[in-house]
């Protein structure tokens, strides 16, 4: 046997020897592994039970109910795909989809741009930046309903704060509650006020993860401030941007509380979003309480959210590879 052959053979021999030598200890490790596995299982069990009971089971029931005519007192009949047929032929559903799309289109990009701008400002050496960060983040911890009620007061077209401010600078009263365009605008503004703090926070975390040496290298190479931001900083914020894009899209698609508290979906159906339509159809105590049809709308929301999530995974996985 040459030296090379001996070297090649020795690890195997060593491993076999080691296995032989430690045979009694292997049994202990097996027991330990089983104990560890049991402990892990016990720790996981509450979560698994919670997810099964509070997430998966309701999801399954929502699918089931969407094939029924179910009323609030529990009486039901099977209707097959009847609710889905009604859904695709329901003009109010499609209007609510359009409204949700418009709402998403204006809240997601604008909120992210504002959040990024504020994050860049507050990432620098600014006196009282911690205070400013807290102030901007604060609306996010207020409940959506409270925000909506506050929004309804502020945008009250007869006696609201906003119209009074506009009036003081010579701008006539705006029909925030009786004109569909302005009603949607008021909801978008309130949503942005609430959500921009979240965008700022995520971008701030992203900015603090950007390596200063990369910025310095760009400066040495003669890049201007805007070029450094556009060509170096912003690309490095890619994961934050993807995260915010998807989270905001899902949030916007599921918006309900702010809309309900501010406009009840009106005037007409001009601010009725998909979720507010599902709520009104199913749970309005003085309404028809069509739980089956509401579940069908819910399933549509679920599938769209699922599609958004799938897109996120596709893009975020390629982003992981790039990084």
């Amino acid at each position, binding site marked *: 046997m040459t030296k090379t052959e001996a070297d090649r053979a020795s690890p195997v021999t060593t491993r076999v020897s080691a296995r032989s030598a430690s045979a009694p200890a292997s049994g202990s490790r097996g027991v330990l592994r089983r104990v560890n596995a049991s402990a892990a299982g016990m720790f996981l069990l509450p979560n698994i039970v919670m997810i099964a009971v509070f997430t*998966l089971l309701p*999801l*399954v*029931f929502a*699918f*089931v109910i969407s*094939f029924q005519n*179910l009323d*609030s*007192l*529990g*009486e*039901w009949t099977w209707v097959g795909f009847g609710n889905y047929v009604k859904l695709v032929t329901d003009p*109010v559903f499609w209007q609510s989809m359009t409204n949700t799309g418009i709402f998403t289109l204006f809240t997601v990009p604008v909120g992210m741009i504002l959040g990024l701008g504020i994050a860049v400002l507050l990432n620098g050496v600014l006196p009282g930046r911690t205070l400013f960060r807290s102030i901007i983040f604060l609306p996010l911890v207020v409940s959506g309903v409270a925000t909506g*009620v506050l929004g*309804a007061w502020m945008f*009250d*077209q*007869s*006696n609201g704060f906003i119209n009074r401010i506009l009036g003081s600078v010579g701008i006539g*009263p705006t*029909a925030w*509650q*009786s004109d*569909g365009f302005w009603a949607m605008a008021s909801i978008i503004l309130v949503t942005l006020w609430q959500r921009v703090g979240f965008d700022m926070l995520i971008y701030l975390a992203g900015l603090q993860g950007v390596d200063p040496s990369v910025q310095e290298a760009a400066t040495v190479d003669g890049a201007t401030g805007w070029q450094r931001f556009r060509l170096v900083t912003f690309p490095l914020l890619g994961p934050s941007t993807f995260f915010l894009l998807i989270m905001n899209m899902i949030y916007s698609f599921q918006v309900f509380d702010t809309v309900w*508290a*501010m*406009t*009840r*979906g*009106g*005037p*007409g*159906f001009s601010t009725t979003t998909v979720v507010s339509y599902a709520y009104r159809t199913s*749970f*309005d*105590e*003085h*309404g*028809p*309480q069509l739980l089956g049809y509401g579940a069908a709308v819910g399933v549509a929301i679920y599938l769209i959210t699922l599609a958004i999530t*799938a897109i996120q*995974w596709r893009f*975020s*996985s390629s982003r*992981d*590879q790039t990084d």
Partner: protein
Amino acid sequence: MDNLNLTRRGLLAGSIGAASLLALAACAPTASPAASSGGVAGSKSKIGAVKGTLTFAFWGGSDGETAGFAYAKKKFEAANPGATITLKILPYDGFFQGIDRGITSGTAPDIFRVDYTTIGKYSAKGVLLDVSPYFSAAESAAFLPALWEAVKYKGIAYGVPHQTDTTAIVFNKAAFATAGITSVPDKLSDAWSWDEFSKVATKLRKTLPDSKYPFAYDWTAAGAYRWSSFLYQAGGSLFTADLKKAAIPSAAATKAMDFTKSFFDKKWVPANNTIKTTIYSDNFFLNQTVPMTFIGDFLIPELADPKDGYKGGDWGTTFMPRDKSAASDLGGNAIVARKDTKNPELAAAFLKFLVSEDSMKYFCEQAIELPTLKSLANSKLDYVSRPDAMKIFTEQAATISTTVVKESTVASFATINTVLQDQLELAFHGQSSSATISAIAGGITSALAS
């Protein structure tokens, strides 16, 4: 990457699993309430001594209402040693969702409060106690006939009419004087005609700045059905006499729709005094956007409250306008018991006690609401606040016709009211009267057939 791939597979597997579980979950039994089986009317009218414990749930509409129910509980328990009524005061929002969930799970309160426009839903599903056996013919006849009818479904009484309320007009006296409106009707027979009411609104419009409006109407949200008062005043109705079909389109419906749409065109009401809004007619009056408003009498305590009430000066009350006839809406609530309550005798005894003359009188006086017993309706109650206003509302309540009651208590009323909400909202934002009436008629036909 691996983790993501695995999760995607997991998601796919989960989706398939969820789909396969549909069939399993579909087998989940859901009880369909059985039809009511009552007894001979009046056969158990002498209930005798009762014992046990029951729960009575209601929403705390005002301090006066809560005081009224607490008074009845105290008196009832004193009169029936061994009987306990546990009061459960709940918020109005979510009240009926809680009741419905309780009924399906068997945990609903034994006795609960329900408005007349919702009682039909429960009666038709057979979940309420048939109280007919507990009321003799004389006891039934003691109620105002229209309101005893309001708690009936297919001829059987499923509750007791506890109180009623209706809409009338509240106005600011100074604003009327400024507009040159020197007198208002103080007798029902002198109520303004639509033309006279229009002249009043026109006068107010001329004296008010652009940011203020002559009046507001109480048709917001679930109050949409109050639009029907104009239909009834014009001589029309929503349904045919047998309650099986829509009675619109009709000339009366077109007239009522044109008239109410004109409120917005002529800027008589704020542009946001529509159906889907968060501001109600009393809010417009309280914040002095309007000097006149249509409100229910249950809101009188709110206006009269010295601390948070109306701050615009002295206010008075007058009647709804009339056209071919006078009409107003059916408001108010019944008290019902669950059919499967463990102690129907005790439940029935408490329901009877709640509508006894003494309990009802005290309740109405405290809550500023209208009684349902003939004896009280024809006597003077000592309302704790603004008895002058209640005089008007009491007279106005006489315009709640049998037609109004029958149409407001059909089992599918909630669905019809939703149709009214959607279509009136569109009408007040420009949809034509004919398209609106046609859509309402379609909705009514569909709801009555279901």
